[in-house]
């Protein structure tokens, strides 16, 4: 009796332990998978968006990158000094941010009078904002072919609900928004804003590359 019980116990314990370990493994896999899925979404979307972007440049209005998308590319943003570039999406039903930087619909188009707001996740598309410094150039190419150069003036940390950003009025400015602090693992109410002001507008065939080089050099 006793010996039988003694034999049965460690076996059951080991089985429970193995089961628990497998559960933990699966749960860990699931959690990791969720994280990896967000990463993949962010990375793969930019590839698909590149195609939709060329369609946008060809004059198509609102070219959705995939048929069920509720967003479409409106501009391409690059920071030549850091070698970073990303395709900016129209802010649609709130899904846009998962795929790329989103241009907030309440704000004017980049380059138009007023403050154009572009937001993105701090851990993916706008991770590079931490390295952006005043004086850096930010280039925005719009679907209509205009390329606008902005120069970063200053950076700022604001509360999400009281950003103080007024989109209407004033000169053409750009506000690049992401979460603050960088590297934090949990969401918070603070936002990091990179302010830039327009320095020139040009069409690609008007020798803009030159101006671009002098700016970065």
């Amino acid at each position, binding site marked *: 009796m006793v010996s039988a019980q003694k034999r049965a116990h460690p076996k059951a*314990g080991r089985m429970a332990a193995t089961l628990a370990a497998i*559960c933990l493994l699966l749960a860990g896999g699931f*959690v*990791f998978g969720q*994280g990896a899925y967000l990463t993949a979404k962010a990375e793969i979307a930019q590839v698909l968006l590149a195609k939709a972007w060329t369609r946008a440049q060809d004059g198509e209005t609102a070219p959705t990158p995939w048929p069920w998308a509720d967003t479409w590319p409106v501009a391409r943003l690059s920071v030549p000094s850091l070698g970073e570039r990303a395709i900016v999406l129209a802010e649609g*039903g709130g*899904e846009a941010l998962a795929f790329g930087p989103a241009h907030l619909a309440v704000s004017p188009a980049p380059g138009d009078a007023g403050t154009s707001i572009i937001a993105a996740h701090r851990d993916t598309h706008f991770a590079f904002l931490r390295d952006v410094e005043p004086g850096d150039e930010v280039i925005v190419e719009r679907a209509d072919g205009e390329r606008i150069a902005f120069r970063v003036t200053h950076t700022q940390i604001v509360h*999400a609900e009281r950003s103080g950003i007024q*989109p*209407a009025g004033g000169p053409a400015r750009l506000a690049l928004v992401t979460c603050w602090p960088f590297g934090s693992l949990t969401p918070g109410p603070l936002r990091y804003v990179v302010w830039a002001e327009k320095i020139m507008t040009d069409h690609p065939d008007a020798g803009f590359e030159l101006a671009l080089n002098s700016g970065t050099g």
Partner: protein
Amino acid sequence: MTSSRTRNAAGSQAWLGLMIAIAAFAATIFLWSEAQADTLDPATPEGMVRLSEVNEGALLLKTVEAGVYVPAPLVATDIALDISGPVVRATITQRFENPSEAWVEGTYVFPMPEDAGVDRLRMQIGERFIEGEIHERQQARQIYERARAAGQRASLLEQERPNMFTTSVANIGPGETIIVQIEYQDVARLRDGTFEVRAPLAITPRYIPQDVGYQLASTGSISRSSVPDAHRITPPIMHPDSEPGEGLRLPVTIRANLDAGFELGPVASRFHATYVEHTAPGQATVRLADGPIPADRDFVLTWRPANETAPSAALFTETVGDETYLLAQILPPAQLGADTPRRPRETIFVIDNSGSMAGESMRQAREALIFALERLEPTDRFNVIRFDNTMEQVFPDAVDASAVNLATAIGFVRRLDAEGGTEMLPALVAALNDSRPDETGRVRQVVFLTDGAIGNEQQLFEAIDVGLGRSRLFPVGIGSAPNTYFMSRAARAGRGTFTHIGQISDVAEVMEKLFTALERPVMTELDALFPRDALAEIWPAPLPDLYYGEPVVMTARLQSTEGVMLVEGELAGETWREQLSLANTRPASGIATLFGRNRIRSIEETRFQGAYQDTIDAGVLRTALEFSLVSRLTSLVAVDVTPARPVADPLVQRDIPVMAPDGWDLEAVSDDRIDPVQHAALDTALIDQLRPGRDPNAQAVDENGVPLPATATPREMMMWLGALMMLIALFWLIANRERRLW
């Protein structure tokens, strides 16, 4: 001892592991939901919802604020057709359901048979019915708007096109249903011995031509000189993918009571499954076999007499006050002119390959055109023109229908793809451009295959009237919901006849019939003669030419019903005459309405003969008010005197998106981002919220500035945590395994 300690250790380890696993699982769920909601922002404006708050199959309209939606009213439609002989009395019942928490004004654009005589509007609230009154359009709108502002329930029925109407219903309370009933009078179309009645359910989205580029109107901000009312005829369209998966957003039920007046042969619906019950000789009831149908394809009911020798003439009268109105439908004998030799022809085929035709429609059009080309004989001449927002002719001028030329044309047609806008005018002008106007030995026919998805009908009618010459125009309607108003009026203006292809399997049969009509001689010089002093007025006047298989249809106002009327016409050099006794007519209701409607239509069409706009307007208005008909200048309005909405509560305006017609390919229509759009509301703050405007001044931004979206994902944390969990689990598994080895 050792073994027992091991056992205990293993047991507690197992428990610890289980707890970690459960905790990890809970954390996963939490993080997952966080990830889903990582862009939410806390404040939702009143009357609007977030996707996460919706738990039923409601239709949602986007607002300017990302992720915030408004539920749209739902419209269920019931159509009852009472058919007596060729006379159709239809009752459309629309149930407006407001699923939202706000007071709502619903606007629903819906199709009607072209030139239907709409003469009644009733609004049902609970047990009460409120009867609509006919007023001049502007006046009706003012009455409606006053009632709307005062919080009274009101409904307004306006005509946008003779086959497109708008119902507006103001002050539908939260969760409330308002029923609007519309009645109209119509005549079944007789063609080749088959009666056909059409209940249009879908609207083919209209293309609005523009000076630069093109676009399918959808945003309500378009104002183009060619189509000044563009915003009124372009309701938002729901993308088929966005329609609720279960149940119908715009369900339609249809039933028909048919009293044919002769022994009935086959009764059938062309595109929908129906139950037909023959209740008595000559009578039948029809209902849908599979329950409600979606509003994406027209309902067409056809019936024929059991024996082909059924009487070829039908006369109906209605007496209203001291006036008697007559409806006559007389079918000339089929063998008339059958042995006339076929005359050589010059046929110009015009095919619409604009984006609206993409999919099923384009296949139908291609098939039909190839069928038609193969029917040509070597003595004929032909040309093929295709158009979208550009235009192309296969040959610079009409060429002989030689085998080589036909092969070239057929090859061209096979390669056609549907894309681009619908710039119909240049193609129409090119087709009517006759390089040999004096060649009398040949008939010149223009066969025009299109879905008529255009908004500039007026310009096209004018072009037909100016350029027709000896040509005759034969529009062929393609698709599940062609613009029949455009087709039939273009056919009348072009002195041809209108044919409709509804599905690909009908192509051969329908085109065969059209070609028989094209090849048979036309009956001209039609006239109806009445006894002295019997006739007061007859419409249409003059009677149009008749193609093979078509009946003479006319309405008249009579001063006496004694004696006989004589109908005569010329066909291939012979005179056809038929005598009908006026005393021998069947009484029917609604004939007066049909007469009024015909008079309005005929007056409207005098525009093409150069009548002054003022004269036309005066005539239309007088007739519409006399017969209580909705027209271009008159609307029906019903107002409940009891106020319902507390004036302090805001009212939200919602356009109810129409369904994309069946077989329609929205992707192929350029610039097709048809986001559901809503405009106008009494509360200006709410208007700003609802209008998806670009204008930053229109946004409600306070001194706190723009609220910024969440821009962090738990991505890194999840990956770290997941990796850690897997690592622990692996470690543990290995440890367990090693202990077993010991």
